[in-house]
């Protein structure tokens, strides 16, 4: 390539500048974090592990000391799902119990916010002193939001009182948005495969019931319609599902002879 002689020519300015301003590799951490956040399509996706990753990534990327994630329980309340350390877990539980704090505010307003523990005593009279007591002076919270759908909030804490920069707030917000998209997508996929599973089970059970009817009618030398009654009677008497009993007949775990009692 013709530009290869000049390191900076033709490259987006941000990348090069970033390398120089960012000796700790924040952009690399950030890029890795985003890849992880987008990766919910793996077969062994675990929501707690995913949110734990979000917490620890936020700490690394935002130069913070602790982070935690709360998700809505679907009834308007929040639950603590993951946190980067034990101290944080207790603090967030405290926040939930006292029904006040940055995470709750970010969740209910759908907006990002930051605050210092010292100057938030009026806003959060119980939470702010407690946060300072366990060693956090500065905190920010961002909603996990996709358009108008807020599903939770991410809380990030610093030991010192140095405010989060505008850049850092934007990064936190972006991480919250990507995580929310990933979670909503994962939830949709899980619901869909539940539905397809139910449909397939319904179709399969019809097939296996017909096969069992044929098998019983042959083994017991009864008409097919009687075989169905025998299946139903057995299922009722043993308090089992019709399709289960049919499956048992077909794979011979239920001997046909045990169904011979003629219907009522």
């Amino acid at each position, binding site marked *: 390539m013709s530009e290869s002689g000049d390191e900076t020519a033709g490259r987006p300015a941000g990348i090069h500048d970033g390398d120089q301003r960012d000796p700790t590799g924040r952009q690399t951490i950030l890029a890795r974090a985003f890849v992880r956040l987008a990766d919910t399509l793996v077969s062994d996706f675990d929501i707690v592990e995913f949110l734990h990753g979000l917490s620890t990534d936020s700490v690394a990327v935002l130069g913070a000391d602790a982070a935690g994630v709360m998700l809505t329980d679907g009834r308007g309340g929040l639950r603590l799902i993951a946190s980067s350390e034990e101290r944080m877990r207790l603090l967030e539980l405290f926040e939930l119990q006292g029904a006040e704090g940055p995470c709750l505010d970010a969740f209910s307003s759908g907006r990002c916010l930051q605050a210092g523990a010292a100057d938030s005593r009026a806003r959060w009279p119980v939470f702010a002193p407690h946060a300072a007591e366990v060693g956090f002076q500065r905190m920010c919270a961002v909603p996990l939001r996709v358009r108008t759908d807020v599903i939770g909030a991410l809380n990030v804490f610093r030991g010192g009182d140095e405010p989060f920069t505008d850049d850092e707030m934007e990064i936190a917000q972006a991480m919250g948005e990507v995580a929310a998209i990933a979670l909503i997508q994962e939830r949709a996929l899980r619901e869909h495969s539940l539905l*397809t599973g139910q449909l397939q089970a319904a179709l399969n059970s019809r*097939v296996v019931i017909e096969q069992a009817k044929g098998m019983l009618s042959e083994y017991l030398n009864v008409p*097919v319609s009687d075989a169905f009654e025998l299946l139903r009677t057995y299922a009722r008497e043993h308090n089992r599902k019709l399709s289960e009993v049919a499956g048992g007949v077909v794979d011979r775990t239920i001997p046909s002879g045990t169904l011979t009692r003629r219907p009522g």
Partner: protein
Amino acid sequence: MRDDGRRARIVAAVTDRDSTTGVAELMRRLCLFAVDEMALSGCALVLMSGDDAASVLASAGPHARTVTTLQMELGEGPCLDAYASRAPVLLPDLSATNANRWPAFAAAALAAGVHAEFSLPLSVGRRGIGTLDLCRDAPGMLSADHLSDALAAADIARDAVLYQQYAPGDAGLAELLETAGNDRIVIHQATGMIAAQLDETVPNALARLRAAAFASGRSMYEIAQDVVERRVRFDE
């Protein structure tokens, strides 16, 4: 969902503006739409759960039933592969391509006058629920536009069945699912009877039934009927 305009256009074409279209009717109109728009000789919506449990939900055109029935009878064909792989199987010329892949199906379909077959999966994530099958009495690939329409139609059918998206609360869906596989009932019953006669597993019994049909030139359905009515036994 990537092509909302296309989808909206098809939905508008197959639903009533002022009243709710039942699921069964929606399926039928989707098949008619495909046949008319794409100059097909057949279109069928097939619900599947495993290779041997297929139910035709709706169909249109003279060749629709031919193609699905052939595949169920022979136990091979593009719609079974599309279902299993959850990827479209496009066969613009049955005489030229893939005759080795499905020797029995390709020959029988050609003999019935079907020259092109396109099978699109109805799928969600890693799971499938069936296929949309299109066939033509002349060779030739679907145009890109028609293929896009067909994919959108498959999505509409899937969402109508799975999420009742286009006919919420329609009791017809349960009824449709209940009756959709009725033409295969006799085959399932016969399979159970053959399994008992031979003291065999159900899959092996089904293979025996299929082999008997293939060897005799009769359909599985006919032989199954003989078995259920006790005119034919497999242990003699």
